[in-house]
């Protein structure tokens, strides 16, 4: 069911890949199937991040790509001629089905089969996970959530059985998790928390040690072998918690062992001795670690995880992280729309788990609590919460149903033993409606869950599948067939992956935001007056500029709405761009009270070029913007350095050619000779 539920988007919008990141993954997968696994590590991609290029092999989480590549190879070995795109489209739904199975196993291990079954049912249709794993959403999260739940399952299994085999299996699953998603640091922090909690609540067992310690040692080494993580696995503060708990665990075990083996008197003597020397030793080690952590400017944390611990951090220092809508804190209602019934049943499940409290259920409780916190910081991490919520809801539902059926069965037995039979007949059907209502509820959930992927495509979606407006693909197809092979396309970074994958053209920046300065340069160009922007673009060999404009049909996430972020990111590196210049009266607006710099900047001009006349035809008003619902501030937009070459059917994609030189300005330096070269070297 989980699989079929996610195929709706294929039925609706044919088998295409959605959104931004999947296009990059798709491109890498194509490369993998053509060139093989080993060449992927050394792939240097020269058509993105012009003129720098990108070392794809060392900067990508390869789990998803391996998965799709292996599936492709296996299917071909079985003589099933299938396209790479089909494999990519169906990877996420397939893995969401696996994820349901993993959830079943996890909860079964904690609470028994009934609860596992209900949890898997919830898992199959929780909307926030559906939105990430619909067919066509070929993204890391699709397989990573499965890996996450599976690691947890194996860990809990090892915890319950105390078997080294399960623990090594958990380490292998952890390897897969590290390979697929940066969210692995959630695991490496959650496990120590669980370990410490177990120690301090007196649940220290040999099984805990067998589940935890080998996983940490093996897992760290495995993480370090994935190039994108590398030595960060031992050098970054995110991982210190694991080592800390590792040390504490050993100390606690040693204490227990000595306590067991020594007579009481000797033990007391040993305690005083160890306490005095141990305190000195520990403080020394702590000082060393603190010194190491303090010596780096960000205290050894990576920006992304720092923004998790301190929600205000990103908006203060890293506009590029804050600019992504997925990284904003979620609104309250989104908990209910994203988790639905699970959000209501979750607290009940949490309480049910406390009783009886086993190490395994303690683990699930901790998982849920931390996940709730993280999802409160970032919308994207709602995805981590979803499995926890499902498991808890499954437990709660199972408990409720078990209590219900127990009552019904008890009543039946009571009545059967009693003489009057009519009563029993009257009561008997009562169990049936209960069952029936439960089963009829299931399609109900999926019914309501279904529109969610469509919604997601509506609001965040990338490629024209929205309203069946195919403007994006139209625009990229135009780029592919009408521009020279070596054309360099400048656009905001959101569209970088799509341009490289669909149009096969070189781009300046893309969704892998590894070089803030480069992005800031593009933002600066977009925010500068036409002539300066032209100079910047010429220096970077740009031949075409692509902007997304939604004013014509009311597509809200267009470049004008993203423009303030371009200003902020650009201003973060180049101080001559000031945000307040672009703000009009009472904030950001595009009508005639807009900031002066905004009306002059390139982005404004490229978006509204020739728009005033066009909108007269559709809206009956000169230059009326359907997204902002205002009349634009400057009607007669003229372009001197750029030439419009393509505008799609609904005006969503507009492509401009950067002219070789503007007939008049001879004072401009020749960008091809000297200016471009030092820039390249200084950036690389």
């Amino acid at each position, binding site marked *: 069911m989980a699989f079929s539920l996610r195929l709706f988007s294929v039925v609706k919008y044919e088998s295409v890949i959605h959104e931004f990141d999947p296009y990059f993954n798709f491109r890498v997968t194509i490369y993998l199937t053509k060139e093989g696994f080993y060449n992927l590590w050394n792939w240097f991609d020269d058509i993105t991040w012009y003129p720098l290029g990108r070392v794809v092999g060392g900067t990508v989480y390869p789990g998803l790509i391996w998965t799709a590549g292996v599936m492709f190879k296996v299917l071909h070995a079985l003589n099933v001629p299938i396209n790479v795109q089909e494999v990519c489209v169906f990877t996420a739904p397939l893995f969401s089905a696996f994820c349901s199975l993993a959830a079943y196993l996890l909860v079964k291990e904690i609470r028994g089969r009934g609860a596992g079954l209900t949890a898997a049912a919830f898992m199959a249709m929780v909307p926030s996970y559906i939105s990430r794993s619909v067919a066509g959403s070929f993204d890391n999260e699709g397989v990573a959530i499965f890996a996450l739940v599976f690691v947890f399952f194996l860990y809990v299994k090892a915890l319950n059985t105390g078997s080294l085999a399960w623990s*090594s299996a958990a380490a292998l699953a952890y390897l897969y998790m590290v390979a697929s998603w940066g969210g692995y640091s959630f695991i490496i922090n959650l496990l120590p928390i669980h370990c410490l909690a177990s120690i301090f609540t007196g649940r220290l067992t040999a099984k805990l040690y067998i589940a935890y310690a080998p996983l940490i040692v093996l897992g760290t080494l495995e993480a370090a072998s994935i190039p994108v993580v590398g030595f960060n696995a031992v050098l970054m503060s995110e991982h210190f918690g694991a080592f800390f708990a590792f040390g504490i665990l050993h100390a606690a075990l040693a204490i227990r062992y000595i306590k067991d083996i020594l007579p009481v008197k000797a033990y007391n003597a040993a305690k005083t001795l160890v306490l005095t020397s141990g305190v000195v030793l520990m403080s020394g080690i702590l000082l060393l670690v603190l010194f190491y952590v303090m010596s780096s400017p960000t205290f050894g944390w990576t920006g992304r995880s720092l923004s998790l611990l301190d929600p205000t951090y990103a908006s203060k220092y890293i506009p590029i992280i804050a600019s992504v809508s997925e990284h904003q804190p979620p609104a309250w209602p989104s908990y209910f729309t994203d988790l639905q019934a699970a959000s209501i049943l979750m607290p009940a499940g949490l309480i049910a788990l406390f009783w009886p409290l086993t190490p395994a259920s303690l683990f699930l409780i901790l998982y849920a609590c931390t996940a709730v916190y993280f999802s409160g910081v970032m919308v994207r991490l709602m995805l981590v919460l979803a499995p926890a919520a499902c498991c808890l809801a499954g437990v709660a539902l199972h408990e409720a149903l078990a209590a219900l059926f127990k009552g019904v069965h008890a009543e039946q037995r009571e009545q059967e033993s009693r003489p009057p039979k009519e009563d029993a007949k009257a009561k008997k059907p009562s169990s049936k409606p209960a069952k029936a209502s439960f089963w009829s509820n299931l399609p109900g959930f999926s019914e309501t869950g279904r529109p969610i992927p469509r919604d997601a495509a509506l609001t965040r979606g990338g490629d024209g599948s929205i309203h069946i407006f195919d403007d994006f693909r139209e625009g990229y197809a135009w780029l592919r067939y009408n521009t020279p092979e070596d054309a360099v396309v400048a656009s905001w970074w959101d569209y970088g992956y799509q341009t490289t994958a669909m149009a096969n053209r070189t781009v300046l920046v893309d969704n892998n935001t590894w070089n803030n300065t480069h992005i800031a340069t593009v933002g600066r160009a977009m925010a500068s007056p036409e002539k300066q922007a032209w100079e910047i673009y010429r220096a970077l060999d740009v031949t075409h500029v692509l902007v997304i404009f939604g004013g014509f049909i009311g597509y809200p996430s267009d470049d004008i709405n993203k423009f303030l972020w371009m200003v902020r990111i650009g201003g973060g590196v180049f101080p001559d761009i000031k945000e307040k210049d672009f703000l009009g009266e009472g904030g950001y607006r595009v009508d005639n009270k807009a900031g002066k710099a905004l009306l002059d900047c390139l982005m404004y001009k490229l978006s509204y070029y020739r728009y005033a006349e066009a909108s007269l035809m559709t809206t009956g008003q000169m230059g009326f913007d359907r997204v902002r619902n205002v009349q634009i501030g400057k009607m007669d937009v003229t372009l001197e350095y750029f030439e419009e070459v393509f505008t799609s059917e609904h005006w969503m994609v507009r492509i401009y050619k950067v002219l070789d030189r503007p007939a008049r300005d001879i004072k401009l330096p020749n960008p091809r000779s000297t200016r471009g070269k030092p820039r390249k070297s200084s950036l690389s």
Partner: protein
Amino acid sequence: MQRSINDFKSNAAVILKSFNAEYTKTPLRIKVIDAFMVYALLTAAVQFLYMLCVGTFPFNSFLSGFFCSVGFFVLSVSLRMQVDPSSDEFKGLLPERAYADFVLCGCLLFLVVWNFMG
């Protein structure tokens, strides 16, 4: 001062003596594992000292060596806890089964280390 040191010495002597007395009761098989653990720990310590003296340069080699020793120590501790007759946590577990798990985990560890050594 002198007194506290004397105290310390006598305490340590008492502890060592009672520890010795208790330890001689553990079966031989466990003692072998213990020796192995000590050996693994010593290897790790030597590597760490070497790193401190010489520098971290081939960092992945150091990491793989160090983690190999620590990992083996951890695995041995796990094995020891599983086959320890004095604890009743693993009643139904055959020592052979525990040893098979241990070998499996060890193979995995060496595979990972080998891969990372570079």
